[in-house]
């Protein structure tokens, strides 16, 4: 739910776009726009491939003809919200643009993007240290580079502007030497791979005269300028001296160019809600959704910090929820300071809000072998703990709530706030369903199901400073599941309620905002995948889902006559990108990804699994030898725990096609083999270095539909 005022508003969607690196210099696909969806097929310019009915086609081909990984491009669209279109629609050339005091037909759109990489100039990543401000002695990356020289640690190709039509260039790149008039900074030659570009942008025009922006990121190059033996080497999962990668992020702004009805001059109208683009590493199993997605996280943040859904969470009065304008900081501060609760009568929809969470662990069996050995936990089919036909049934009037015990069983196993450092259920009121208890056995019979879920690594299972060993769901996810467990949920299918009728946002573009982020990793953050814990800091947002942009780094956000401000080529002299942080002014290019690991391949490779010591809640590391402590040593307990198999596959299924003849007929059969996904790349520091050059050879995991009896997801396109 978003407040919708009656004046005309122009907004870029998605609010945060996600591009992904790839080593193909030419081929791209477009970011998936639904949770767990396949990416959208497109040509090299980003024009989506349409079927005969004009519908956009998805693709499961992730590599180009030379076996190079295609880049995922982020696509941006501009929506108009006005009295005629309260739910919004995409803007078309020829639409009447409501300017400031004037109006006229849209003739073109000017898009400006500025991507940068600040990783090497930022602080070292040390788990949760720094999330609420860095200690004065917190070490910097590349601390040997000092003073103004540190500016050279930022990869800054400068801002670029493109147009949809004849008002100027339709494509531009963030490549060294290809941004006339803008100061640039690129690292010196690197080993093994130098970085000379952070990507490119271009516009496309659809047959409906929509002008869209296509943003692609880097080629996945990483390297170190330190070359003396034993350099270059990787010695840490997140911080490596001398290293750079071509990950980046930055603001996406736009101006609408219209011809004034009165004097026929071309004028600008600034798009009110600008966007942001984040470049991540490839999503190798795009259809397998993370336990917590970025959308889950940002939604939770928006609900609890920005009064985003006051019917779900607020100061009470859920019959007539209040509307808080998130940009009215006084009102929002007062709201934040008030006591708030979740609406005890909020009934989530089963298939929209509950089932997607419940099925995530089940589908992870196709990216890790662990689940197969765990007695069919998370099974969603018949006789499973998550049997869809049973857990989808809300209690009905006049009938006993027979499946409540199943729901309670699942809900009780979920890790709650404050239990991040516990492996086992120790809640004094913990009580499994009557179904699970046997007469005379009581609590003991429940003990086999004693590990808290999700059984995945948390934000810091590594050190003794701010430990947070295991992952837990967001408060909002837990609340929704609690409602479900208590029987307060709606089975929309049984209520004859269509998907399209279920809790639609007032603004249609929000579906894009949320759909895109639902394919990013929302935890754990150590440091994370596309983006680290900074994404859960409310200070970086201007309003729900919208990153607050530092206006100094955007060319002229005021509306004027076109001739006076053509893009970034005139009257735009931004200060150099800061090596510091300023949440109050807003975010600069590179400010979201700078926390992440450098190079990304090191953390990506190592975040496979982790032995977590859970002997003591507040201790990740025990030193039983100093002084020798044999009893402690004997009591020490560890748990091998996965990081995020959906984002970094562990084991995958290979599918083999066998053509045989039976009784004279050609028969196709399939056989399968479960193999390590990153074959030949050990999860070691040496392996990390190998990952820098070998990542593009790894296979993708996609849903197969040729053999309904085989594993549902199999590996494709691996470069053996």
């Amino acid at each position, binding site marked *: 739910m978003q407040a919708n005022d009656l004046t005309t508003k122009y907004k870029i969607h998605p609010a945060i776009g996600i591009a992904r690196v790839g080593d193909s210099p030419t081929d791209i696909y477009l970011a998936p726009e639904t949770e767990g969806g396949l990416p959208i097929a497109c040509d090299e310019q980003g024009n989506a491939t349409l079927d005969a009915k004009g519908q956009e086609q998805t693709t499961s081909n992730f590599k180009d003809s030379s076996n190079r990984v295609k880049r995922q491009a982020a696509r941006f669209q501009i929506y108009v919200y006005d009295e005629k279109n309260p739910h919004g629609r995409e803007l078309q050339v020829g639409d009447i643009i409501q300017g400031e005091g004037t109006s006229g037909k849209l003739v073109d759109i000017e898009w400006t993007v500025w991507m940068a990489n600040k990783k090497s100039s930022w602080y070292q990543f040390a788990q949760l240290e720094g999330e609420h401000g860095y200690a004065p002695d917190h070490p910097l990356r590349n601390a040997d580079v000092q003073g103004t020289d540190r500016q050279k640690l930022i990869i800054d190709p400068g801002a670029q502007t493109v147009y949809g039509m004849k008002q100027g260039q339709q494509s531009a790149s963030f490549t060294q030497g290809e941004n006339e008039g803008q100061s640039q900074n690129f690292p010196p030659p690197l080993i093994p791979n130098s970085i000379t570009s952070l990507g490119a942008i271009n516009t496309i025009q659809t047959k409906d005269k929509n002008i869209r922006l296509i943003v692609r990121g880097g080629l996945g190059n990483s390297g170190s300028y330190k070359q003396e033996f034993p350099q270059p080497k990787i010695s840490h999962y997140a911080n490596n001296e001398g290293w750079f990668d071509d990950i980046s992020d930055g603001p996406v702004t736009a101006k609408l160019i219209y011809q004034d009805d009165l004097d026929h001059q071309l004028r600008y109208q600034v798009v009110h809600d600008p966007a942001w683009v984040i470049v991540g590493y490839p999503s190798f199993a795009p259809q397998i959704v993370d336990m917590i997605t970025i959308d889950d996280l940002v939604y939770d943040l928006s609900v609890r910090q920005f009064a985003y859904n006051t019917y779900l969470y607020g100061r009470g009065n859920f019959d007539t929820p209040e509307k808080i304008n998130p940009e009215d900081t006084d009102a929002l501060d007062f709201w934040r300071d008030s006591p708030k609760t979740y609406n005890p009568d909020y*009934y989530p929809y089963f298939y929209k809000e509950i089932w997607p969470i419940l099925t995530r662990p089940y589908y992870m069996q196709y990216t890790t072998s662990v689940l197969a050995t765990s007695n069919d936990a998370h099974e969603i089919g018949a006789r499973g703990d998550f049997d869809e036909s049973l857990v989808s049934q809300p*209690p009905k009037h006049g009938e006993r709530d027979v499946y409540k015990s199943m729901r309670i069983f699942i809900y009780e196993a979920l890790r709650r706030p404050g239990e991040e450092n516990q492996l086992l259920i120790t809640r004094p009121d913990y009580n499994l369903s009557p179904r699970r208890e046997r007469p005379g056995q009581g609590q003991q019979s429940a003990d086999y199901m004693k590990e808290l879920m999700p059984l995945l690594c948390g934000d810091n299972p590594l050190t003794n400073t701010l430990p947070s060993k295991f992952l837990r769901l967001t408060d909002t996810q837990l609340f929704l599941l609690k409602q479900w467990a208590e029987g307060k949920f709606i089975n929309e299918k049984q*209520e*004859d*309620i269509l998907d399209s009728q279920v809790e639609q946002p007032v603004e249609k573009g929000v579906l894009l905002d949320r759909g895109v982020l639902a394919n990013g990793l929302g935890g754990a953050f150590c440091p994370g995948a596309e983006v680290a814990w900074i994404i859960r800091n409310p200070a970086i947002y201007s309003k729900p889902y919208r990153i607050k942009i530092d206006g100094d780094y955007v060319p002229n956000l005021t509306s004027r006559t076109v001739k006076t401000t053509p893009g970034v080529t005139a009257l735009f002299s931004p200060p150099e990108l800061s090596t510091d942080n300023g949440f109050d002014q807003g975010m600069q290019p590179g400010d979201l990804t700078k926390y992440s690991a450098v190079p990304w391949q090191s953390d990506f490779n190592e975040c496979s699994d982790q032995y977590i010591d859970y002997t003591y809640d507040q201790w990740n590391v025990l030193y039983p030898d100093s002084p020798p402590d044999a009893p402690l040593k004997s009591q020490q307990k560890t748990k091998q725990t996965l990081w995020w198999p959906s984002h970094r596959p562990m084991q995958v299924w290979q599918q083999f096609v066998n053509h045989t003849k039976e009784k004279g007929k050609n028969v196709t059969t399939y056989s399968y083999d479960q193999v390590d996904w990153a074959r030949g790349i050990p999860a070691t520091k040496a392996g990390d270095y190998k990952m820098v050059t070998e990542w593009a050879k790894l296979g993708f995991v996609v849903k197969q539909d040729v053999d309904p009896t085989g594993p549902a997801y199999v590996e494709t396109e691996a470069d053996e």
Partner: protein
Amino acid sequence: MATKQKKGPGKPKSRLDHVRAILNKAAGDSTADYQGYGRFWDLPLKEFLEVSIYSIRMIAPLPEPIDCSTFGMQETTTNAAPESNSCCGNKETQPPPASSSDCCSGADTPTTTTPGRGAKSGLIIGLKGEFPFDGSHFPLLPWGGTQVSAEDILYISNWIDDGCPDEDHQVAVDKQKSEALATGQEAHVVSDRPTNVIKNESDGLKQRKNIEFLTEDEICKFRYAIQELLSLDKFPLDNRNYTYWGRLHGDECQHGWEQFLTWHRMFLYEFEQRLQDVVPDVTLPYWNWPMDMYLKGFLPPQKEVMKNFSKKIKKKIPREMVSGVIPTILRCYLTEEAAKRLVAQGVPASISEMVGFQYNSGLEFFWGVEQLIGKQALAQHKLAIRAELLKVNPLWYPYRYPANFYDANGKALGEAGMQSKFNHHYPRTKDVAQILQVSNWTDFGGGPQYDASYGVLDMNPHNTIHIWSGGFNPNFDPNNPDPNEPQFGDMLNNLTAGYDPIFWPHHSNVDRLFNRWQELHPGLDPADTTASLSGLDYTVKDALTIKRLGYEYVIGSYYVETNQGMKMSKFNSTKLGTSSMMLANHLKAELRLHNVIQPSVSYGLRVFINQPDADSKTPVTDNPNYAGFVSFFGHGDCIGGPGHCDPPKNNPSRFDFRSMHHNTPRNVKLDVTDAVKKLVDKGANDLQISLVVIGPGSEVAPKLLQMNGLSMNFSD
């Protein structure tokens, strides 16, 4: 679009049938499960009314009844309305068409209408697609079906407003009964609806009543409303809470000069409005201090007080623990339920010996408890017991020690003590009468700002009663201060007086005497009528008449509701059921006819009391049952176009400043004090009212009287 059902042969379709037809048509072939209810509108009506879908009540419930059992009383409702069986014996909420000749023909059974109930119902909200059925959480109703037209939604909403009737029978017209009522053959029944409910509906003046004459219903509502404001005390910033008003009095109240009476009038008015936000028909009762029941019990003898204790207590209550007599409903008592709760908390079971008695103060009550459970157990449980006492009677107050005054040695002095310590005595009837004779504002109500002085009403009885009801706490120990045992009662001092609920009946009586004095001495105003009243958003002028504030003072009243559509030649009431106490204590008896329709021809009415067979020939001279005469000035044949003689139909607008329409129904007031007195002197113990129409010339009484009620009002 649902079509109007045509009435086929057989049983006519009811509105409920039509509501179901609308919903079924819209649902089409939907298979929506509605949480297992299926098509809940097809359930038996009783179940349909109770259905909640995903915690949203489909048909909004009627207002919650007030649970009077908390106070050890019967249950009542916030807007009680009778189950009606016949249209003619009861009031209709809508006035009938002016041309209607017979009230009963074709009229639907009047049921309880609750405007806005439909709009509050989840079904209507869902059909309209209002939040949360606007797609933000739920799609609009019916799910899987088609949208219901605005017209049909209104039809369903009105059906809900009208009380969701099961069947709308065409009333079998009981012409006989109707004729009997219209000619006095049959008597109109005294309404069992609270008078202030009727007043509230008709926007009439609400009645503040003598606290000893409240009905059970009125007592319960007063307690309930006070308790609701008390319960808001846990929200310190909420200015509706009880403590806010207590503190406002302490901080802002005006005493000892000319604003005393006006300030307190508006202060009570504001507080009463807060109570009426909780229960619309509650008013502040008044405590008529010099009534016999208080005077004769002034510091009752110990022997008398001992009757209030279980026989198990052998010891005689010490004189210093005996308190003065206060109004009955403010007293301290324990219910059986409360005693059980205390026993469950560990209080010795013998505390239940206190159930069934009333005490003028907590002093007396706790003395009794101490005898039963012992000093130690009392000390341990005193606060818990106190909490229960406040729960069962929020009008009781622990820091209230009426008439407890002591000498230096702790010896009880009684009224003599008040006399010696404060130079005042408890007010008697003659004191009040004397005060009311004062004929200038300064002496009665206080001097102006630049020459301020106390008025007599302010000083005594007002101050006296404060001091008397506050009193001294015999348990106060200066060497061992205990916040629960203060030196004085809260009423004794201005800053704390507003916290004791006895404050309201006390000041209500001050205001009543102020009003009485104004009636006796019209035109006397304070020097500055434009000054603002501190802490209240009013000026002195706003407070100069209570009519504008919407209330009046009566001991009590009896109301007979009639159907305004019925034309009567004679009216008979049943016996009113007047209490002997009312008959003995009133100073004035006033008969009122409410909303009498303006007749086209002039006619007269003769009023008889306790002579139900009176007719136009019944003598009016030397007849003690003849109480008076009313004449109506008929307007004659209409000289204008259609509607010229119809008063504006819709609710009178706040912005309609025109004079009253010539045919707006009028009220009649008739002072029948003398008639009542004569009958009572002759031994009458109840009253029955008869009105006889005396037509213009004709021998046979014409049916000319139309009104929607008659009431008998007693004041003191």
